[in-house]
């Protein structure tokens, strides 16, 4: 029997507000344990939460960017469970009335557009962090993260493959980064994902029994874990077995999922409206103000890049996947108005370099001005494309301007025909055997001669002129 997989994702995005969602403590990452805390986020007796308006604004940005319907009145609810990283014994979240519902984003898979539904977006507070020291019979809890704002974005079960799930996840990450509301860093946990996955016979309308996958802390692991889980469920069904509803944990080092808890062991969170917080009322003015402040989003920018710069859909997609990269590209094009060539260099040399050094575009050692400067040098024929790559490497290493590097290292292209002719004469007279062979029809040796000339000129000779001079001399 042929099966299809049905996947829905629950994404937690940590919001980049300066202070926590219900108190004035800093949200900064990496402080010594329990230094970004106060009676409120520590859950001391008698304290009360006060909602950070910035959190609402950031959530509204996301809601608008994902075409959600915004609830004019939403409520905070308490999600009750015991755990040492949860100081109040409940998490303030939203349940019955989230801030936004019924949205969608579009993804592209193999040049095919697909619309993925968003069930809801809600605000909540993050929990603290436990560390377990294996050498001591103690667990330590750090409440710095307690109360850091999160939004949870729940998708419809519209995804049909791990690739689609990956594309959707990347799309949402790109959106939160464009909106400047979240770092979108899965490895550091500022962008987290749980996946619900089930399979069903193709053509079936009903859903199969789903498993919820947790601990998916990189894009690669999301796809790998989903692939593993789909195969596992297929094997069970093919053997006549039954998938059971449960939460499963992905083990990245073992490349498999294992059962964490069954449906029967699932928590009853006893949600109820938080009596300490009033219903959140959002009026049109607020929504319109946020709407006005929204930046151009990845999809809009991609279309603009295709229309304005005549880039291919793939190039435009890649360049707009991050707001900073797209801005870098546009800044370069402003200074060197040849979009295709800028695109080639950004996607080729620059991203190659950044990937190798595991840097982001913001950390690029090559400024937009310098990259444009380099392209201008090629365009004017001052250096060859090949020399330009050497210059680029130097720029990346030292952060210096291309003009200076070219001048200092005397890399200016030799376009003087008589100078090239001189070198050619020398090479030909040094290699009489090869000249003979060439004249006897072994024309492949042309490459050898060009190579020798370039070696002699340390790559500076204009390759076009070298070819012309060589041809002329070898034919005569």
């Amino acid at each position, binding site marked *: 029997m042929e099966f299809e997989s049905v996947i829905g994702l629950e994404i937690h995005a940590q919001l980049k507000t300066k202070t926590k969602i219900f108190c004035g403590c800093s949200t900064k990452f990496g402080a010594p344990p329990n230094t970004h805390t106060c*009676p409120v986020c*520590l*859950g*001391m*007796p*008698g*304290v*009360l*939460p*006060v*909602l950070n308006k910035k959190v609402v604004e950031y959530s509204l940005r996301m809601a608008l960017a994902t075409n959600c319907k915004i609830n004019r009145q939403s409520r905070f609810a*308490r999600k*009750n469970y*015991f755990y*040492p990283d949860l*100081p*109040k*014994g*409940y998490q303030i979240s939203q349940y019955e009335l989230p801030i936004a519902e019924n949205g969608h984003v579009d993804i592209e898979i193999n040049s095919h557009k697909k619309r993925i539904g968003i069930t809801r977006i809600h605000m909540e507070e993050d929990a603290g962090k436990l560390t377990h020291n294996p050498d001591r*019979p103690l667990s330590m*809890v750090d409440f710095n993260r307690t109360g850091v704002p999160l939004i949870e974005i729940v998708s419809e079960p519209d995804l049909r493959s791990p690739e689609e799930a990956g594309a959707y996840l990347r799309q949402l990450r790109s959106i939160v980064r464009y909106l400047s509301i979240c770092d979108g860093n899965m490895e550091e946990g500022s962008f987290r994902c749980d996946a619900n996955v089930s399979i069903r016979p193709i053509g079936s309308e009903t859903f199969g029994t789903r498993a919820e996958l947790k601990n998916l802390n990189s894009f690669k692991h999301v796809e790998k874990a989903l692939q593993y889980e789909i195969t596992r469920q297929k094997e069970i069904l093919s053997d006549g077995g039954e998938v059971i509803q449960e939460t499963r944990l992905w083990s990245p080092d073992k490349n498999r999922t294992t059962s964490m808890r069954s449906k029967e062991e699932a928590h*009853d969170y*006893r*949600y*109820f409206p938080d*009596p*300490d*917080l*009033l219903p959140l009322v959002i009026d049109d003015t607020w929504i319109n103000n946020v709407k006005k402040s929204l930046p151009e989003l990845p999809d809009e920018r991609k279309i603009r890049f295709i229309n304005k710069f005549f880039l291919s859909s793939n190039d435009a997609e890649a360049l707009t996947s991050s707001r900073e990269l797209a801005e870098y590209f546009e800044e370069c094009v402003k200074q060197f108005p040849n979009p295709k060539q800028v695109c080639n260099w950004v996607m080729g040399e620059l991203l190659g370099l950044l990937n190798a050094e595991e840097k982001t575009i913001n950390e690029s050692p090559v400024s937009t001005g310098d990259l444009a400067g380099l392209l201008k040098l090629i365009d004017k024929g001052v250096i060859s494309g090949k020399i330009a790559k050497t210059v680029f490497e130097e720029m990346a290493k030292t952060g210096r301007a291309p003009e200076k590097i070219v001048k200092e290292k005397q890399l200016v292209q030799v376009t003087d025909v008589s100078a090239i002719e001189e070198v050619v004469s020398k090479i030909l007279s040094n290699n009489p055997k090869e000249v003979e062979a060439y004249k006897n029809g072994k024309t492949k040796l042309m490459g050898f001669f060009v190579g020798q000339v370039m070696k002699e000129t340390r790559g500076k000779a204009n390759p076009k002129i070298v070819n012309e001079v060589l041809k002329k001399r070898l034919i005569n």
Partner: protein
Amino acid sequence: MNLYELTINEASGFLRKGEISSKELTGSVLDRIDSVEGKVGAYITVAAESAMKQAGYADSEISKGNITPLTGVPLSIKDLICTKGLRTTCASRILDNFVPPYDASVIKKLKKAGAVIVGKTNMDEFAMGSSTENSGIKVTHNPWDLSCIPGGSSGGSAAAVAANMCLGSLGSDTGGSIRQPASHCGVVGMKPTYGRVSRFGLVAFASSLDQIGPVTKDVIDCGILMNAVSGYDPGDSTSVPEDVPDYTSFCKEGLSGVTVGIPVEYHKAEGLDKNVFAAVKNGISVLEDLGAVCVEVSLPHTKYAVAAYYVIAPSEASSNLARYDGVKYGFRDREKSRLMDMYQSTRSKGFGPEVQRRIILGTYSLSAGYYDAYYKKATQVRTLIMEDFKNAFKACDVILSPVAPTPAFKTGEKTQDPLTMYLSDIFTISANLAGMPGMSIPCGFSAAGLPIGMQLMGKHFNEGILLKTAYNFEQATDFHKKKPKI
């Protein structure tokens, strides 16, 4: 006359004129506590040293001319209002060693006004109870008859005020916890409108019902304390940005033109003691003599109030009390090394039986599959009760009723029967469910000589009319002048 016998208003006058010092006054109150605390048991913590320091500070402020009606006035605070550096136990073993690192908003206000805090008063554990017998720390006795309960949950506050162990006190009221002990101890108690006084720093029992309020010797004092603690607090999202009038000013107005509503349902209530009935009936005629018009009103959903309350309050409590898990502060059973064992043992040993009963009740009401039938239904009943009052207030300005169905009962009499105990809140619970202000003032004595109070309830943010009615009544009677012999 002993200084500790003064009301806030009287003491403030003497302090202002320099006839007494706060050190003398505070010293007198501390001596009084020393001599009668053994009999009454009103205090969990007496802060003699810091009180004298605050008194000295108040005296220096007064000498500079910085004086408010509370400067130098010794007050007590119910032990679930957080006081920075001063142990706050909620009368629970689980918080036996808890010293708050911050002041509740009301404490900040009192300190700013120059008040002196002499100590923290006993209560039912986490304010759950009507007799102060559920305290995990000690027993409080009614100063009028030491074999009787002082009422609850603010029993320590009411007993301390009645026995002159402070000039006034702050309590908290979730279902009658200020009004009922005030009634049993013959003092004045007010539960303000929900949102009138900041709850920040009030250890939560049931967040949508809790409200801090004054317990005082007379009505003027109640107004003075209301002036000091009322007002919007950005730290409490449920506090309301509504102007604070001078509450003492209402005491100057007369009663003519005031319509008092008498709910027919309350006076048919089962178990209403004949002493209470007679005292309240007398109270009605006193008000009529003063020019008030009394009319019958109907609150048809009253019979469901206790049931709704005992679903909503425990539900919220089950969540509010989840933070006492032994991890961060308070008691932890250190014998247990596994997390679940530690949680269970800490909470089983740390909470008393009534608190555990309500946590279980509330957990059940909020559980999947029961939520709609219990919690949700109870909130719907709550809406109906609010509607009842809205309708009733179309025909009257004040609603009058008994506070408690009986005078103070004997210690131990009802501890084995929580349901009967719950029913003693029948007249007070509705004001919490509807969020309205309610007040208890002395209106008579039982044949056995125990004080009886009557309750006045008003529209939201209309504490003024309660104070006006109460003050006129007080001036026309002398119940508040009688003091327990102790």
